[in-house]
């Protein structure tokens, strides 16, 4: 029985009891407990069910590598599935539930799978690729739904997250990952030399294994005391930042690191703190001091609750004062696990025997165990574990030369098996960004190859591994390796004062080499490895890996994907090395030839909340607002997103019958602008200043038409094509000075156009003397459009806006109604129209002045929809409607805006290609429906011939379609094959299954063809 020891537990505070709930049962623990240690203290050893077989599972580990004890923690908007109990700090009121079982943890129907598999292993690796194929429909309707329900782990959260998250952006010289003795030494050495150091540790405690290995002395004191001293020293240094509960999740190119700080998981809902904080760090050098993980041993039934990693067993004893059982058997391939036997013995837990796979056992740790009266059996191993929901005993026997358990079997009663298959350095971070590994056969581990580390922007290795992560498992080597790494990292970032912190004296017990042991088949049905679990969570056994190899899935990546080895939430921390060793053995290759699978970020899973940070709700893609935005809102505006902007779609007024509909509002706005005058907030229009002696030359290349000949004070409508000759943006270009142009772009296209200009300037025409600057936000702009437009401006006064002084397509600066303004006489509505721009901070004042001055002339604001309809009435194109990336200016009858004189412009050569110059291309036309009340749907296609069913050959499509209040009928624009030749032809548009709309091809300019209204 697992229980809390009467004393001990370095990290718990026995004076502070904590209550929590587990599967509805109220339990007690102490502050400092993890959920795992507290459960163990309450003799809860059955903590979950496995993925495939639903086998009962308990704790294997005490840290990040735990594959089994996954739980749903929290309630409601703070519920979170799949939490590792070993990583959850206990707090008052915590609720935890086990998952993946039905109806209960103790009795799970899914365990039927396990029963079937025990008769015949039908659920072998990849079995689902070989069946569930007949009948075909059954996959969608029967097999897949059943599989999906059975798979998955925890339940999905139902509610939106109650917590907040934030990001930190940090630069440092040296990032030290890991707060064990190697990391602390590295940080100390780097900091002593003046480097800015950031050191982070994923657990709440500094010191790593030094806290547990009490027989080791550093500098004449216990590991824990030495750590305390180092932490005190470091925290007193200005150039050092320290964080616990902060896991380095991934290393990316050029020293970019992502850190995941769990600020408030242990105090949920704490005021004023985010739950998680994502650190986005750019480090000069990175020191990886991430330690090592112990490997399980694949023997039969190595997954029964009560089988644990030896190091985890002593963690529970020494850190949390918990005995995971009453009587233990230790099974090891190395000296290290003897520490567990000694720790248990010290704590009063009986140790039935230490089984050591090595034929000869000599070292000092075994000697101490023997001296303590613990039976040590050399050359022995576990044949199988007995028990279902808890270990009842083990069958043991002698190891044969082949690594099997043979000979006479004995049975030892126990409720705890502590296993140790040796240690694997945590090389994940080292590998994320291309660091290579080398196989150390003697130590039986992959370790970082320092010659082939990840490189930074200058090609130099920018990451250093040290300590156990570097393959050094002994305390003195960890300390010195850390110091050297810290020194080198500091020096590489320009900090070398020649400070070498004094090396503390270490008293540690030397250890003999381990005997690698990857697979422990026993006799009979246990000879096949079907109960020898490698990946506990995904239920991958040694037999599965062997089967994969047999079937030709010999690449380590194939074997992984075929068996799902290492694909669980622990990403194979305890299983990958054992698995690839079995694979190597099966295909007769050496371990390093097989290699590892790719390590990918994150090291342990990080929350989507943390990745999202503050960018939620109103801060998700912050809305760009014009200076008049709030006024529009007060005026009843219905907004629509346009790029990052919100623009009024229309302004819905209150009428005696209630608030106008959108359609009513749009109609009113259009008629008012056509008959009186309308005001449009045009501030979102992109504005780019192009300035310099070569500005004209540059714009001649960027636009299809000639801009260098434009006279100062004049405006010209310009088109921009991409390299493929297709139109991608348009707008009015204004020459504001001899060497200065203001280029208007579409609202959504401003950033794209600016980037396009800069790309050409920086990569192709870097010798041009031109600067570009986007000033979209710097100016607020209002279009005053309608027959009364001039009167409104004249009432404001200060600038002569008569046709003589300011003719169509010209521009003037002045003081309008007391505001410094730029006035452009341009029109997108076809009406007499001025666009008035003022510095953005005066935008609201301008709007209010115009509204006030316009009142007597019937001025009303109008929105984007009225704008769209009015431009369509005039046959003006809209980028994104009439263009779609495949349309040339010529297709839109805008050939007049494509210079024939210029030697070159972007898209010119492309437009000369056969297909672009061919006859019969889709061309812009107008459409008049037979029934003037019928509005063609947007995107409807015209067909060559109407047929009863598909397929019908299409000849073009509707690009814009509206009901025109001005004309009292529907209008549409379309791109139709050979359209210009089809004037008067009636086309058929099958708009629905049994509905065909007929429309006549007409000129796309529906209103004021001569353009008289804008020229008054």
């Amino acid at each position, binding site marked *: 029985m697992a229980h809390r020891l009467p004393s001990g537990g370095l990290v718990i505070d026995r004076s502070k009891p904590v209550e929590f709930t587990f599967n509805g049962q109220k339990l007690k623990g102490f502050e400092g407990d993890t959920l795992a240690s507290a459960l163990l203290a309450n003799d809860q050893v059955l903590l979950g069910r496995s993925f495939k077989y639903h086998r009962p599972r308990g704790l294997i580990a005490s840290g990040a590598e735990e594959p089994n004890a996954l739980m749903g923690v929290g309630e409601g908007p*703070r*519920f*979170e599935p*799949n939490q590792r109990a070993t990583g959850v700090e206990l707090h008052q009121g915590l609720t935890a539930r086990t998952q993946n079982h039905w109806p209960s943890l103790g009795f799970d129907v899914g365990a039927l799978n396990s029963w079937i598999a025990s008769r015949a*292993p*039908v659920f*072998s690796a990849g*079995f*689902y*690729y*070989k*069946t*569930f*194929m*007949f009948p*075909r429909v059954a*996959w*969608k309707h029967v097999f897949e739904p059943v599989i*999906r329900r059975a798979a*998955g*782990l925890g*339940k*999905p959260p139902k509610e*939106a997250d109650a917590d907040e998250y934030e990001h930190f952006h940090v630069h440092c010289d040296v990032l030290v990952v890991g707060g064990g003795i190697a990391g602390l030494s590295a940080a100390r050495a780097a900091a002593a030399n003046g480097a800015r150091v950031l050191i982070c540790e994923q657990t709440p405690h500094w010191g790593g294994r030094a806290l547990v290995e009490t027989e080791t002395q550093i500098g004449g004191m216990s590991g824990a005391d030495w750590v305390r001293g180092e932490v005190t020293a470091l925290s007193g240094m200005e150039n050092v930042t320290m964080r616990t509960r902060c896991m380095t999740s991934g290393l*990316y190119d050029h020293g*970019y690191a992502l850190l995941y700080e769990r600020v408030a998981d242990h105090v949920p809902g704490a005021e004023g703190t985010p739950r998680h904080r994502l650190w*986005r760090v750019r480090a000069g050098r990175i020191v990886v001091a991430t330690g090592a993980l112990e490997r399980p041993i694949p023997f039969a039934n190595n997954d029964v609750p009560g089988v644990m990693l030896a190091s985890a067993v002593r963690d529970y004893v020494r850190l949390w004062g918990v005995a995971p059982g009453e009587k233990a058997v230790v099974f090891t391939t190395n000296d290290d696990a003897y520490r567990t036997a000694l720790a248990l013995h010290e704590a009063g837990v009986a140790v039935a025997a230490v089984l050591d796979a090595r034929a000869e056992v000599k070292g000092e740790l075994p000697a101490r165990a023997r001296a303590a009266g613990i039976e040590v059996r050399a050359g022995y191993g576990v044949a199988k574990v007995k028990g279902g929901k808890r270990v009842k005993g083990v069958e043991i026997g002698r190891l044969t030369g082949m690594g099997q358990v043979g000979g006479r079997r004995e049975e030892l009663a126990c409720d705890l098996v502590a296993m140790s298959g040796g240690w694997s350095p945590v090389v994940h971070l080292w590998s994320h960004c291309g660091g290579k590994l080398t196989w150390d056969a003697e130590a039986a581990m992959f370790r970082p190859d320092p010659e082939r580390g990840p490189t930074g922007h200058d090609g130099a290795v920018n990451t250093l591994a040290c300590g156990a992560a570097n393959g050094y498992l002994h305390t003195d080597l960890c300390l010195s390796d850390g110091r050297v790494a810290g020194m080198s990292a500091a020096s590489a970032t320009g900090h070398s004062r020649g400070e070498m912190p004094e090396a503390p004296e270490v008293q540690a017990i030397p250890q003999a080499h381990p005997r690698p042991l990857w697979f422990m088949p026993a006799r009979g049905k246990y000879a096949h490895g079907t109960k020898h679990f490698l990946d506990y969570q995904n239920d991958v056994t040694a*037999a599965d890996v062997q089967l994969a190899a*047999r*079937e*030709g*899935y010999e690449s380590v*990546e194939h074997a992984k*994907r075929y068996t799902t080895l290492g*694909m669980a*939430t622990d990403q194979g921390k305890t299983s990958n090395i054992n698995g690839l060793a079995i694979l190597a053995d099966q295909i007769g290759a050496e371990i390093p030839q097989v290699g590892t699978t*790719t390590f*990918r970020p*994150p090291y342990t899973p990080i*929350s*989507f909340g943390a*990745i999202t*940070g503050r960018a*939620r709700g*109103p801060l998700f*893609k912050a809305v760009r607002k014009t200076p008049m935005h709030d006024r529009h809102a007060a005026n009843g505006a219905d907004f*629509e*997103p346009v790029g990052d902007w919100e623009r009024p779609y229309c302004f819905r007024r209150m009428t005696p019958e209630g608030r106008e509909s959108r359609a009513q509002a749009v109609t009113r706005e259009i008629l008012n602008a056509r008959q009186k005058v309308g005001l449009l907030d045009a501030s979102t229009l992109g504005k780019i200043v192009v300035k310099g002696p070569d500005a004209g030359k540059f714009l001649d290349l960027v636009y299809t038409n000639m801009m260098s000949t434009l006279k100062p004070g004049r405006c010209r409508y310009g088109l921009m094509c991409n390299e493929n000759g297709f139109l991608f943006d348009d707008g009015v270009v204004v020459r504001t000075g001899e060497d200065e142009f203001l280029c208007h772009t579409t609202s959504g296209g401003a950033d794209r156009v600016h980037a396009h200009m800069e790309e050409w300037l920086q990569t192709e025409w870097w010798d041009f003397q031109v600067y570009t600057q986007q000033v979209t936000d710097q100016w607020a702009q209002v279009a005053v459009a309608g027959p009364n437009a001039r009167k409104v401006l004249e009432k404001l006064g200060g600038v002569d806006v008569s046709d003589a002084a300011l003719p169509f397509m010209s521009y003037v600066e002045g003081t309008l109604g007391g505001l410094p303004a730029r006035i452009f006489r341009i029109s997108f509505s076809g009406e007499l129209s001025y666009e008035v721009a003022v510095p953005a901070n005066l935008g609201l004042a301008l709007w209010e002045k115009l509204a006030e001055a316009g009142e007597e002339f019937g001025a009303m604001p109008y929105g984007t929809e009225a704008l769209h309809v009015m431009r369509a009435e005039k046959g003006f194109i809209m980028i994104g409607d009439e263009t*779609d*990336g*495949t349309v040339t200016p010529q297709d839109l009858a805008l050939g007049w805006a494509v210079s024939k004189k210029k030697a070159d412009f972007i898209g010119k050569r492309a*437009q000369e*290609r*056969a*297909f*672009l110059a061919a006859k019969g291309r889709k061309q812009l036309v107008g459409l008049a429906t037979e029934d003037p009340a019928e509005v063609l749907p947007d*995107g409807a*296609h015209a067909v060559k011939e109407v047929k009863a069913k598909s*397929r019908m050959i299409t000849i073009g499509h509707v690009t814009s379609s509206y009901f025109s209040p001005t004309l009292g009928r529907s209008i549409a624009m379309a791109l139709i094959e050979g359209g210009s030749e089809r004037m008067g032809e009636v086309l058929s548009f099958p708009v629905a*299954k049994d509905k065909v709309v007929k429309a006549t091809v007409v000129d796309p300019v529906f209103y004021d063809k001569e353009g008289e209204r804008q020229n008054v």
Partner: protein
Amino acid sequence: MKRYSAFAIAKEALGYHVGWERAWGNPEPKPEYEVVIVGAGGHGLATAYYLAKNHGITNVVVLEKGWLGGGNTGRNTTIIRSNYLQDPSAEIFELSRRLYEDLSQKLNFNIMFSPRGVLMLAQTEHELRAWERTAHANRLFGIESEMVTPERIKRIVPIINIEGPRYPVLGGLWQARGGTARHDAVAWGYARAASDLGVDIIQQCEVTGIDRDEHGVTGVRTSRGAIRCKKLCIVVAGHSGVLADMAGFRLPVESVPLQALVSEPIKPCIDCVVMANTVHGYMSQSDKGELVIGGGADGYNAYTQRGSFQHVEETVRALTETFPMISRLRMLRQWGGIVDMTGDRSPIISKTPVPGIFINCGWGTGGFKAIPGSGWAMAGLVAKGEDPVAGPFSLDRFTEGRMIDESVAAAVAH
């Protein structure tokens, strides 16, 4: 080839599965083949399979420098749909989708095609119009695809937030017969079936050079020796430019890393594929329970098949906004794959300037869904010198300006 079935599994289970044969052979390369295919991804393997199956050409080898299916076939987010706007795209993607429907049965390998539906959200008026246009085109073409209302979207995907506020869902384009499949299984299934028809698949065999004379291609040089051939297919997404360079011609493609990630597995919560192009993210749930999430392409050319963070952040933000309940779920793994991007974002299935050399590349972000159709068309092209489905995707469209541009529909990804 021993057939796979529930019966076969039961029988083999009694013997602890020692009786299974290799899924595909492991032969030594022969000195000469009629057709050499470089690249054992989905497209290359499907090409080999249909060469043998449809055209009886079995003297074929597929060369792979790493492990088969290890490129984008094993890295994508497995979306299958065919509701494309342009006719040539609709043609090949619909052929592909139809082939996927009974591919498990044809290959006798469960590739887990799951026609659970693909939903493409419209979150701006512009996007709505673009999908409407596509829906019209699809209906006239004969592809089942329809516009759905926000209310229907909420019923299809209860976890979605259709209210915005930033980009409320205005509607969507729904293809009920689109879905997902198990990506690795597609490669393995084709490999096994092709191998069974006599095709050699050689892994760990890197092509280091291409030999040609005045008449065209004569063979390839590889890390396992020279191999002569009459015809050569280059099907190496991500490295197409490198192989084309060996053959002595240039391609209008750029290679960029594309980002993807998965969450930890949870019980089923989303029953279709959702693509949100305005906010830029797409998501489905694998049979194992992981949320499979596609991100954007990095803004620079590279060959590193690595995850970067910027697009992961952008995508996760978008999806947290679209599906607020995912905030407390966790990212399990992120990775990158190298995709070839063409100028019009449509693929190239074509003869090349070198007689005897054919190329299949440029699938950009949408290649997985096309694997069966692409292999089918490529095999036709190689066997007969022309293929009606492959035709429009020829290389000369770039010199003629005959683009097949799907970005029309404002789509950031296929």
